[in-house]
C-alpha cells in the first residue's frame, strides 16, 4: 500500500457530490408534482401544450440537462457502492463500475437527444 497509486475516484466522486445537491434540492418537488399531485388529480395538471412550452424554453432545457445528467451520475456512484457494500458484491467491483457509470453515460446521451428533439 505504501508505494501504491492514488485513486482516480475524485472524478466520479465530484460528479456524485454535485449531483447529490441537485437531487436534494430539486427532485422532491419534481416527484411531488409530476409523480403524485398531477397524476392523482389533487392538483389540476396544466396540460400538454403548457408542459411542452415549459420544457421548450432554453433555460428549462439547460436546467433539465444539468439535473438529469448529474443525478444519473450521482445515482450511478451510490448504486455501485451500495451493491458492493450492502449487497456484498465486492468481488464484482469492475463489472458494477462498468454497468453503473456506463448506464449514467447512456442516460446522458438520451437526455441530450431528447432535450434537443422535444
Amino acid at each position: 500500500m505504501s508505494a501504491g497509486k492514488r485513486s482516480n475516484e475524485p472524478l466520479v466522486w465530484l460528479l456524485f457530490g454535485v449531483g447529490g445537491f441537485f437531487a436534494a434540492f430539486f427532485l422532491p418537488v419534481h416527484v411531488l408534482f409530476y409523480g403524485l399531485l398531477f397524476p392523482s388529480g389533487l392538483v389540476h395538471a396544466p396540460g400538454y401544450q403548457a408542459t411542452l412550452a415549459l420544457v421548450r424554453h432554453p433555460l428549462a432545457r439547460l436546467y433539465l440537462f444539468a439535473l438529469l445528467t448529474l443525478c444519473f451520475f450521482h445515482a450511478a456512484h451510490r448504486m455501485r457502492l451500495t451493491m458492493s457494500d450492502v449487497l456484498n458484491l465486492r468481488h464484482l467491483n469492475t463489472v458494477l463500475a462498468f454497468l453503473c457509470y456506463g448506464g449514467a453515460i447512456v442516460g446522458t446521451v438520451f437526455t441530450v437527444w431528447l432535450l434537443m428533439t422535444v
Partner: protein
Amino acid sequence: MPQYTQYQPKAYRPRMSAYWYLDQWRYLRYALREASSFFVAYFCVLTLVQLAALGTSATRYAQFEACMGSPVMIIINAIALAFFLLHAITWFNLVPRVAMRQMLGRPTPDAISSGPNYLLWFGATVILALFFLGVL
C-alpha cells in the same frame, strides 16, 4: 484433549454477516439512505420517458399521464418521494458541514452550515412549483 497451539495461538476471525445492515437500526438507516440512489435513477428514467412522450404527440402524452395515474405508479412515486426526502435531509446535515470546515478551518455550529441549505431548498421548491403550475 486440547490441541496444543502454544507457539501458534489460533485467533478467532469473525466473519461479517451478509445481512449486517439488518442487525441494528443505525446500519439499516445507512442502507436506506444509500438505497435512495435506486429511486433517483428510476425517476430520471421516468422523466426521460415523459420527455419522449412530450416530444412525440399529445396522444402519447395523454397515455403517459394515464399510466402515471395508476395506483401502482402513485405508490411507487410516494415511496420515491420519501427516499428523496431522506436523501435531502441526510445530505444537508452532512455535506455543508464538511465544506464549511474545509473552507474555514475551524468548527461552525450546524445551524450555520446546514441552515441556509434548508432555506435554499424551500425557495427552490416554491419557485419550481410555480413553474410547474404555470403561474410563472
